[in-house]
């Protein structure tokens, strides 16, 4: 019999739609990702548009937008029209059957928290941790939700600004904790912000971190935040949380947007359907947040309740799945109980071939063979292929029925929203690239050559004519000796002042990056840039960490975790040092400002451009040598454009800027003091007035000859570069100290110490040589390869040296 020739999603043109028959990607991870995003058999998908450069495509499904590559879209097979008609008839029948299965027993409704007896093999809170020293009850809650569902906004709304940021143990995924407040009072509830995830399958580091937290740390309850405008896909995670048996409280966010669309959600039906309390709210406006925190406050006294896992499983899964789960339980039940995992959840995970759980249970080879046999028999009963797809399909079938019952769509004709109109312009085939260039140009102009520069100069003048004379005066009154005055004024204050002057530029840069991120434009940039990025083995998603790299390499390397595969992540991290971080900006500002005066803005821009060019060339080189292979998949959600919330933006900017200030007050201050000592003492540890007798001169003199061919073979430049390995800003500290004492100030001294060409070569060296220690430590952690880390450290120095040599030599020939 001849196989039916099927159309694929890749064959559809913008505006056309089809219903998924099955997923057939070669990459299993890709399939899992698509399933978690709701691309399951029977789902209707409409192609919205293609990216300006022809790839990827934007599609709409389950009331949200997703972008994926044409290549991957071609692996999504569609039903033919006859099958579609048959399916819709069958669905009408199925709907009533599914509605019957929609439960439930005695759900806990809002304001009626119930304490429930926990049965063996189910989720239990970690014993002995719910009483604080004072004897008060203390609860630890986890906040879980999909990316872009307003998690940070709700976290800030619930905790105020009491959050502190750290890392999850062992991995560099950001961890936030804060105390919940209700009615202005801080409650004994710690809220832990889990990473933004689409499912609890162990596909990405974020998912593993979130799952392990719930399983190992066993929070008292999970506050599951859902995007009400994208309910279907968000409920997928909810269902997985319920399968774990953990007490869940649902925060139904963005209800204001649902109301704006004239749609409505029956929260009672949702609560009954899931068996958990549901709180409609808008984290942005704060509406409904008080009711949620009041509930949390009362639940602190009455206890947290969870729906029965058995109820959840009965509602979602059919009889053959249940039989398969029982069979899995017979094989691995003992090991599951030994490890203390929720019984049904663990059985389901084993049926899904969950590698991490298999590893932890250490099943015998005989048990593994039996398990494999059970899974194969289970899969043969369905046409969906792997068990994971069958289970995902069951979850979505339940969700669809619940969604239909709870969500009422307005009968008014759907008109294009403001977000659609903005998107039509920003991702337009002809306008998108010029607009992107214009936005980036605007950011750079604002930060580096207009407002940012004026504010920097203001702070510089304030230090020079305000702070330093004041400190000198004070020390003279206190009869401090000259050397002590020099230590405080030239060493400590001079060093800090040189760096703090660039604070406004750094604030502006972070402000702009946060605005891009929160507005939803970042994901569009990834969409636009995917095709060109793929040319050197990266996905459009890499563009986001790259852009963050202009702020700081450390969070950018952490953000690279969002990459879908290890190779892509490594490539992104290896290329991050080429994106000139904001710490280098003070160096550019100082040297270019002194040597190129009015053209300094252009010089700085050229350095940023040069970094990108070297990044691209290195990317091509790495792809051909170190990290060959096919490009990573690109599956990304398109959140609607939203007006960024000032509070969130300011909190994020403050988080980052406070690091900079902290650095200025610690490591940069310490470095300034040390440099002052090395500059003012000779090798026999006597104070010296002649810099040529200083320890620093001796140290710098060892390296300076190597730098002579690059046009800056002075001991000052050599030492400045060395100190830059601790933190890039200290290059400025060093230069300010070495040249600050000369008549006419640093700028005049720099003009006599460097030729313009030598200065430019010096800046190229600063741009490209090994990143600071903090960045290298993060890179090492994220790359998970000491060899690759050592390689990148050496590669950066070598490349910086040759690039500076090239600039100086070629420049000498041309000029």
């Amino acid at each position: 019999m001849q196989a039916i020739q099927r159309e694929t999603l890749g064959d559809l043109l913008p505006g056309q739609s089809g219903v998924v028959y099955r997923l057939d990607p070669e990459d299993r991870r890709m399939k899992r990702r698509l399933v978690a995003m709701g691309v399951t058999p029977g789902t209707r998908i409409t192609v919205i548009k293609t990216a300006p450069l022809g790839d990827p495509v934007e599609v709409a499904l389950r009331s949200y937008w997703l972008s994926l590559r044409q290549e991957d879209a071609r692996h999504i097979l569609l039903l033919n029209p006859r099958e579609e008609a048959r399916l819709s008839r069958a669905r009408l029948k199925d709907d009533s059957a599914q509605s019957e299965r929609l439960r439930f027993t005695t759900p806990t409704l809002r304001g009626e928290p119930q304490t429930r007896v926990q049965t063996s093999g189910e989720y239990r809170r970690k014993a002995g941790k719910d009483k604080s020293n004072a004897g008060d009850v203390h609860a630890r809650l986890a906040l879980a939700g999909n990316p872009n569902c307003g998690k940070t906004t709700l976290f800030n709304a619930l905790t105020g600004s009491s959050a502190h940021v750290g890392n999850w143990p062992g991995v560099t995924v950001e961890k936030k904790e804060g105390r919940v407040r209700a009615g202005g009072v801080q409650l004994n509830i710690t809220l832990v912000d889990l990473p933004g995830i689409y499912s609890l399958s162990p596909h990405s580091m974020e998912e593993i971190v979130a799952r392990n937290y719930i399983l190992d740390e066993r929070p008292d309850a999970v506050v599951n935040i859902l995007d009400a405008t994208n309910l279907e896909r968000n409920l997928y995670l909810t269902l997985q949380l319920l399968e774990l048996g953990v007490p869940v409280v649902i925060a139904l966010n963005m209800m204001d947007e649902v109301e704006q669309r004239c749609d409505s959600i029956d929260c009672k039906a949702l609560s009954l359907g899931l068996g958990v309390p549901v709180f409609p709210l808008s984290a942005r406006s704060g509406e409904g947040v008080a009711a949620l925190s009041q509930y949390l406050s009362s639940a602190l006294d009455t206890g947290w309740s969870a729906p029965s896992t058995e109820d959840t499983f009965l509602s979602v899964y059919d009889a053959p799945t249940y039989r398969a789960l029982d069979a899995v339980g017979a094989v691995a039940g003992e090991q599951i109980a030994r490890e203390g995992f929720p019984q049904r959840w663990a059985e389901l995970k084993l049926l899904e071939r969950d590698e991490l759980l298999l590893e932890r249970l250490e099943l015998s080879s005989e048990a593994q063979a039996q398990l494999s046999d059970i899974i194969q028999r289970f899969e043969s009963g369905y046409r969906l292929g792997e068990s994971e797809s069958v289970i995902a399909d069951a979850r979505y079938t339940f969700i669809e029925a619940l969604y239909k019952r709870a969500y009422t769509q307005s009968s008014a004709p759907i008109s294009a929203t403001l977000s659609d109109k903005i998107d039509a312009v920003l991702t337009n085939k002809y306008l998108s690239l010029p607009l992107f260039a214009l936005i980036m140009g605007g950011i750079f102009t604002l930060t580096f050559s207009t407002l940012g520069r004026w504010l920097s100069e203001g702070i510089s003048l304030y230090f020079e004519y305000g702070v330093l004379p004041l400190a000198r005066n004070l020390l003279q009154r206190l009869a401090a000796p000259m050397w002590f005055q020099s230590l405080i004024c030239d060493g400590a204050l001079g060093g800090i002042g040189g760096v703090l002057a660039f604070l406004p530029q750094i604030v502006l840069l972070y402000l702009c990056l946060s605005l891009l991120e929160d507005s939803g434009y970042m994901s569009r940039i990834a969409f636009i840039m995917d095709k060109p990025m793929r040319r050197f083995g990266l996905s459009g998603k890499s563009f986001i960490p790259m852009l963050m790299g202009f702020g700081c390499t450390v969070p950018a390397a952490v953000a690279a975790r969002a990459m879908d595969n290890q190779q892509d992540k490594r490539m992104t991290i290896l290329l991050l040092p080429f994106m000139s971080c904001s710490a280098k900006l003070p160096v550019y500002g100082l040297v270019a400002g002194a040597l190129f005066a009015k053209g300094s803005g252009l010089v700085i821009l050229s350095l940023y451009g040069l970094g990108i060019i070297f990044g691209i060339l290195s990317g091509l080189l790495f792809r051909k040598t170190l990290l060959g292979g096919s490009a990573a998949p690109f599956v990304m959600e398109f959140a609607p454009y939203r007006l960024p919330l000032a509070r969130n933006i300011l909190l994020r900017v403050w988080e980052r800027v406070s690091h900079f200030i902290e650095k200025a007050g610690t490591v940069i201050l310490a470095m300034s003091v040390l440099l002052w000592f090395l500059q003012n003492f000779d090798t026999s540890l006597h104070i010296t007035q002649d810099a040529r007798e200083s320890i620093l001169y001796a140290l710098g003199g060892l390296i300076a000859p190597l730098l002579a061919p690059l046009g800056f073979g002075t001991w000052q430049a050599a030492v400045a570069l060395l100190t830059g390995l601790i933190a890039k800003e200290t290059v400025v500290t060093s230069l300010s100290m070495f040249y600050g004492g000369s008549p006419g100030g640093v700028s005049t001294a720099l003009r006599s110490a460097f030729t313009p060409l030598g200065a430019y070569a010096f800046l190229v060296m600063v741009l490209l040589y090994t990143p600071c220690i903090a960045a290298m430590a993060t890179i090492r952690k994220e790359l998970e390869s000491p060899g690759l880390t050592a390689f990148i450290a050496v590669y950066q120095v070598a490349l910086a040296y040759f690039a500076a040599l090239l600039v100086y030599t070629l420049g000498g020939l041309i000029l």
Partner: protein
Amino acid sequence: MKLVYCVLGALILLWALVLLVLRVFKKGCGGNCADCPMKNKN
């Protein structure tokens, strides 16, 4: 008075040295709280 300033100067220098040594050997914290495992401890 001179001795007081000498002690003060030496203390400042010692603080600077300790801080820098810690930074080099403590996996590069550098005031970067997002990368600081110490801040997770309650």
